[in-house]
């Protein structure tokens, strides 16, 4: 079994967001970059499948030299090989899906795993777009995955519960928190990763579907009001305010 895990490098959530001079992108100064947390669930799942029934795990990321960090980390965690698809990995999900589809098309992957969304961009689009471009099935926001002979059974989050999706492999599965508990890299893994090389491939040309034309910080929320008195008085004052000022009720 051959598994592709697509990983995205994203700004850490704690990063203070500043808009760059162009008015439509993130000012990269002082940004701390991490592997998108949902992708960590995807990678962990791939490694568990490898440990359980045997598989070759290929980690892939689209971007420039900086995303090698993400790939090195994936190798340290247990990916067998790593591919850097040189292209714009921060841009449009449709473009990224095309680049990955073009790379993966004839490589015989049985399973493609990725996060259900990239932290920050939150588009939740790359996975399903990749599945469509490759002409294969999908299950998104998955919290449980079972593989059969050429088939998969996935449990995914929906409103008010979960649902079971079944389909044929190859397929794209996008991971959600709950799928597993990602491990930390061991010293042995980190040492082994140092010996592995990252294959660099130029991404195929892709068309852009959508782009950010302006990025703005949200308006400041007006200062809130502290309610006074004991618990009963505070409760009374809050409900009155919600009723009269906020007109919530």
């Amino acid at each position: 079994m051959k598994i592709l895990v697509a990983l995205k490098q994203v700004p850490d959530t704690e990063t203070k967001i500043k808009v760059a001079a162009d008015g439509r992108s993130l000012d990269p100064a002082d940004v701390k970059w991490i592997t998108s947390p949902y992708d960590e669930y995807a990678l962990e799942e791939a490694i568990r499948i490898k440990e359980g029934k045997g598989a070759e795990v290929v980690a892939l990321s689209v971007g420039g030299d900086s995303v090698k960090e993400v790939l090195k980390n994936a190798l340290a965690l247990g990916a067998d090989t790593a591919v850097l698809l040189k292209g714009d990995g921060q841009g449009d999900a449709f473009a990224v899906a095309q680049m990955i589809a073009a790379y993966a098309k004839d490589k015989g992957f049985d399973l493609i795993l990725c996060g259900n969304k990239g932290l920050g961009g939150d588009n939740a689009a790359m996975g399903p777009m990749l599945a469509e471009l490759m002409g294969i099935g999908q299950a998104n926001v998955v919290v449980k995955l079972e593989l059969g002979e050429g088939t998969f059974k996935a449990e995914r989050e929906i409103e008010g519960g979960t649902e079971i999706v079944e389909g044929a492999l190859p397929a794209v599965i996008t991971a959600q928190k709950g799928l597993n508990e990602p491990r930390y890299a061991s010293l042995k893994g980190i040492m082994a990763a140092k010996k592995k090389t990252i294959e660099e491939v130029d991404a195929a040309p892709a068309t852009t579907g959508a782009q950010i034309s302006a990025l703005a910080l949200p308006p400041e929320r007006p200062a809130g009001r502290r309610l006074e008195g004991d618990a009963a008085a505070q409760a009374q004052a809050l409900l009155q305010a919600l009723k009269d000022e906020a007109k919530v009720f």
Partner: protein
Amino acid sequence: MTSMILVFCELKDGQIRKPSLEVLSEGRRLADAAGKQLGALFAGASCAGSAEAAKYGADVILTAEGPALTSYSSDVFAAVLAEAVKSKGATVLLAAATAVGKDVAPRAAARLGAGYASDVTGLSMVDGKLQAVRPVYAGKAFATTSFASAVQVATTRPNVFPAAEKAAAGTTEALAVPASDFKSVVKEILAKASGKVDLSEANVIVSGGRGMKDGANFKILEDLADALGGVVGASRAAVDAGWGLPHSMQVGQTGKVVSPTLYIACGISGAIQHIAGMSGSKFIVAINKDPEAPIFKLADYGIVGDLFEVVPELTKAAKAMGIGSN
């Protein structure tokens, strides 16, 4: 042919789901602004209940009906959506950012070679093309997204756009169901026992964090939520604490993104990953014994105090005032 804005609508028990009514209403507004027709698209074994779309402004109601659509399948439904866009010459395809909407809309977009914007909170037509505003970076910024493609696809965040009735012709038209080989299909729905609305669609949410100390204490939040006509959520710290709270209750970056009218955070400090899920709430109330808790920076109303005293008082007062969710 006047070009069309097409809205994919979901039916549940023969009724159009609320997030679909919201996107239909927004679609009507956009269609009026751009001089376009509004089409409402339904797919399933039966589309009974779809006629209701006329009340929310659909000029045309398109139904794809057949046994092949009995269970939801992302690839088959994406084919239905893409075919409908092509056959009607639609330039804009909208859906609600529900579990199904977020599953099928990007797939349909890829099939159409179209750009896609997810979970948007603002839409407009600029020079005949869709423009979308959506929160990014955990709600710390808003991105205006424009499209390079001729067809433009977007999903709208539930509870953000008002559902407004506006009668239209609602002429019905049946669509052919494309033949497909079901690459993946939903076999079973494992619904939670509670018949309450999902957090993502709730109007009032009472959330508890690590300050709740134990899962059993969430009973007091249930009581308050019941009194206010709301549902209960939780921070990740509470879900991960081993108190027996399901992940489906988690609000935040790795949980649910919610946009209620009222969000009451009880014993939640207001970490950025939590805020990422609830900063779109219209009114935020924080109950926390630490006056320095970051959640107070966000709160419209703050109560510095012990939640175990304040929450029961709120329930009592709500009952006394005869408050219920609107």
